């Protein structure tokens, strides 16, 4: 996968790591899912606590459009909502929870993206989206039993 843009981009391997992923979590509802992945990024020093509320607000305002594909939600808010460092959080869920999408619920792959500038944000989104379009990649994510296994998937793929 080559990036032909001359804009400085960030590779996914830089954004995601052992501290920002959690495998096979049990949550009761979508709010707990957003809270959970958000707290990972807060603990890793990547976002301010306020960014979690911003992601929830965007979801509430925009409806369930963040559920971009069956089982996959991509949470993000704006850089000024509290991003400290570019980051990507991922929580895989033991059991999917509904986010209110007419066709793509329930969600078991919860991604949260934080970018500090718009251009890098879009390129990171695109890089992630390219991977999420591959069934084998999704299978690996869902099969990962530990946080470390999950992190390794991004380490070796990108």
């Amino acid at each position, binding site marked *: 996968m080559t990036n032909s843009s001359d804009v400085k981009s960030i590779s996914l391997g830089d954004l995601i790591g052992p501290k920002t992923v959690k495998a096979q979590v049990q949550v009761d509802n979508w709010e707990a899912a957003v809270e959970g992945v958000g707290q990972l990024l807060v603990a890793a020093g990547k976002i301010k606590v306020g960014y979690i509320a911003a992601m929830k607000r965007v979801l509430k305002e*925009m409806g*369930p*459009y963040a559920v971009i594909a069956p089982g996959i939600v991509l949470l993000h808010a704006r850089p000024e909502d509290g991003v400290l460092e570019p980051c990507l959080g991922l929580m895989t869920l033991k059991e999917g929870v509904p986010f209110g999408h*007419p*066709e793509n619920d329930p969600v078991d792959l919860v991604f949260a993206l934080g970018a500090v500038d718009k251009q890098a944000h*879009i390129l990171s*989104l695109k890089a992630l*989206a390219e991977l999420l*379009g591959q069934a084998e990649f999704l299978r690996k994510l869902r099969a990962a039993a530990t946080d470390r296994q999950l992190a390794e998937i991004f380490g070796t793929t990108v």
Partner: protein
Amino acid sequence: MRIATLCGMGFGTSMMLKLFIDDILKAEGIKAEVVPWDLGTFKGQQADIIVAPVGMESNLRGTTTRLVLIKNLVDKAEIKTKILEAMKDVSDGVTRG
């Protein structure tokens, strides 16, 4: 031909979808203008085709522009099939509801 992308998650996803469509068209050797629209400001803008996620039809009620509704925004195969069909319809002057 102008294709607009309209997503519900603010600036990022419309642009992401635009980049995907750019890739698809480039691979097919097709030239078209692809513009990302913002949900808050798109009314009054013109396009031949609007690509949006399933569920957004309600925001686009009343438009006569050819709509392409995508279920899986990361599935290039789905996007490609639907976009090419829509472009052919628009070129042929076929109206589809």
